[in-house]
């Protein structure tokens, strides 16, 4: 039954450009796919590894800027893709090594600092990034000679990427390594005593998350044909986090739903309300205070973990299992 529902949903998604005629809405749908990929990648860290980050837009943006730089230097799209991903992975490695020095709150604050550094570079290092003016590109890849200029064509290309992302996430979640990542989230102390290398497990999860942020960032670049410092601002990281949290972190569906939700609200809100940031902030507050489980049920774990004020040295047992004699 579940398989049928999934297949049906994917079929619907695959045929969007066929039953949505208006290219504006097809583009909105493309945005949803791009951010769904980003949110899925972010959830590897936030949901599965239990590491909340407010700097991930930095990685997304690094990929976009790297891609734009390479494209404008005349490189072919394969080189661009590989180059952008490698640069972002290197950045993710640096982020991870630094951020993993902290736990919980410390981790968040370090990611904020890292995100701000990336933003500062994007905004101020004008010779590198063109500052506030941003960087434009005017090409899209032509896989197998097919043009991606039209909205439906780009939508389908994004859909393919989305499918690959979804598939790789599903494999990751079901894998022994995926189980290790979740174990390290729930009981890092025990995991160490069981023989796992918790730091390395988290580090690799960070890189995996960074890889998909890079792919999403590159896709965004090709979609938008433009990247600016706004992409790596704190509010962008906050939006991404909102996508993951509002949808729920415990399932693969959650981040997808969250991405759709945030994009819909952003686009609808901007039609009726001029101030999107206000709405974003209000949603954050409401969800954090009233709906910590997120909208897709079953993501209790992250918030139980967040709500249990434990110091890192104690076992992170979040279900109150201290039946001390």
């Amino acid at each position, binding site marked *: 039954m579940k398989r049928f529902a999934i297949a049906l949903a994917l079929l619907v998604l695959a045929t969007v450009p066929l039953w949505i005629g208006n290219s504006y809405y097809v583009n909105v749908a493309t945005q949803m796919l791009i951010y769904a990929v980003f949110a899925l990648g972010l959830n590897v860290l936030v949901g599965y590894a239990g590491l909340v980050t407010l700097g991930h837009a930095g990685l997304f943006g690094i990929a976009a800027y790297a891609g734009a730089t390479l494209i404008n230097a005349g490189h072919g799209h394969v080189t661009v893709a590989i180059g952008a991903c490698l640069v972002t992975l290197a950045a993710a490695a640096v982020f991870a090594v630094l951020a993993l020095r902290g736990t919980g709150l410390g981790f968040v604050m370090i990611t904020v600092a890292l995100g701000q550094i990336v933003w500062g570079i994007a905004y101020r290092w004008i010779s590198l990034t063109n500052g506030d003016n941003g960087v434009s590109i005017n090409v899209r890849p032509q896989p197998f000679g097919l043009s991606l200029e039209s909205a439906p064509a780009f939508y389908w290309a994004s859909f393919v990427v989305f499918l690959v992302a979804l598939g790789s996430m599903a494999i990751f979640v079901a894998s*022994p390594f*995926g189980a*290790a990542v979740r174990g390290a989230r*729930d*009981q890092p102390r025990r995991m160490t*005593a*069981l023989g796992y290398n918790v730091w390395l497990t988290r580090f690799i999860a960070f890189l995996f998350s960074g890889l998909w942020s890079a792919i999403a960032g590159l896709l965004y670049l090709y979609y938008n044909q433009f990247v600016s410092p706004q992409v790596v601002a704190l509010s962008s990281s906050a939006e991404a986090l909102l996508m993951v949290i509002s949808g729920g972190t415990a399932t693969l569906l959650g981040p997808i739903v969250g991405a759709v939700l945030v994009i819909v609200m952003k686009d609808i809100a901007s039609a009726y309300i001029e101030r999107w940031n206000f709405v974003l902030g209000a949603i954050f507050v409401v969800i954090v205070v009233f709906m910590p489980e997120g909208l897709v049920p079953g993501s209790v774990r992250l918030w139980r973990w967040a709500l249990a004020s434990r110091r890192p040295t104690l076992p992170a047992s979040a279900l109150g299992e201290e039946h001390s*004699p």
Partner: protein
Amino acid sequence: MTALEVRGLNKSFGGLRVTAAVDLVVEPGERRLIIGPNGAGKTTLFNLVTGELRPDSGSISLFGSDITRVATRRRAHLGLARTYQIITLFPGETLLRNVTLSLLGLSPLRWNPVARLDAQRDLIAGARAALGRVGLEHLAERPVGQTAYGERRRVEIAMALAQNPKVLLLDEPFAGLSIDERRDVLALIDGISRDVTIVMIEHDMDVALEFAERITVLHFGQVIVEGTRAEVVEHPRTKEIYLGD
């Protein structure tokens, strides 16, 4: 060769000496009990042996090799396993998955991001067997959250046994259990083969004494009395320390 040997182990937190020049020698296959009043430093000693705490000075060896500087995770690979005083299972997972995670910790599979964990038949069979050894095979598919406290205590032990350890550290395995449950767990522990050396911390004297061959009494981080069960039970200092217990 001794199974576990601790020499001159010291640990202080600020001004507080929690482990003071502790010597401990456990022979292969032995059943050693560590007792002492609250705050005596028993769990701290375990944490030092597993490496979760670093000693200020002293040495720890496992079957002749010095593990004082060895990382905790590697000690697991060398055959050291432990249970925890506060139950630290993986919430939201089934009992089977809990024990599978334990087995996975020693397997190179733990780095594999593409295989299906549920398809690793050998691993899962091993986990099922470990659950069987503690009499919980019938609850393998039950989520941890839906099991009774006594059952979770046994899962703690299953997780440690699953790794086929050479030295097993049990931290208050009877805590919070009813009298019948204690009997069951004792029988379980009795059934463990002599290939496994067991060191147990316990508070409950009745059941623990049945288990013990040799006893070490800790107080304020120091070894006060040590010897066979009979020797320690009769020792005047033991009675002093446990006055009123």
